[in-house]
């Protein structure tokens, strides 16, 4: 069964589905953002393990490394850009979350869709760090 040999692809698909479940089912926006990050890293994991060679070495030519034994460098170059884009998306989404809380007082998606205007109360538990 080739599923047992490609166990890394199976793990990437499993993590992708866990992330997608979080984005769909969980109601808190920050939980959805954590799920989005899990989905992104699962896709990167799948992509890099496509370019893996059995017994390969890292693609850095020092000390007479043999180029025919190196793993594929092109997916790594593409995913490096992908990681930077992922952190930019996360930073922008968190800035929007802060603004959303300031405006509506809640981060629950069901209550936001019902369009209640709630001011954050003075005694709300904020953060929790002393």
């Amino acid at each position, binding site marked *: 069964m080739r599923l047992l040999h490609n166990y890394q692809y199976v793990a990437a698909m499993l993590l992708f589905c866990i992330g997608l479940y979080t984005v769909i089912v969980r109601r808190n926006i920050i939980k959805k953002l954590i799920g989005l*990050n899990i989905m992104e890293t699962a896709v*990167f994991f799948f992509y890099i393990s496509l370019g893996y060679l059995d017994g390969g070495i890292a693609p850095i030519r020092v000390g007479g490394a043999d180029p025919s034994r190196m793993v594929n460098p092109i997916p790594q170059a593409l995913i490096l850009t992908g990681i930077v884009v992922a952190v930019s998306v996360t930073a922008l989404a968190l800035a929007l979350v802060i603004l959303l809380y300031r405006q509506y007082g809640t981060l629950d998606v069901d209550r936001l869709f019902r369009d209640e205007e709630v001011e954050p109360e003075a005694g709300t538990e904020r953060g929790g760090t002393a």
Partner: protein
Amino acid sequence: MGTVLNLIFIVLMVATALLAVFARDLLAAVIIFSVYSLIMALMWQRLQAPDLALTEAAVGAGVTTVLFVVAIFKTRRREEE
């Protein structure tokens, strides 16, 4: 040996991802997510990608986690039900 280590990392990744999804306290979920990021960085090294391991370690544990913690600090800490 190599396969066993990969399997241990994969089991740890799936376990921390599940724990981060089902944690009620948002701060705990974010800390578990940073552990997931760390194990993903180790997994990049197992796939012979040292540039990606460095980037994922610096970005996942250094920048993304702290931005999440700042956002939680400015909003609520517990998930509403």
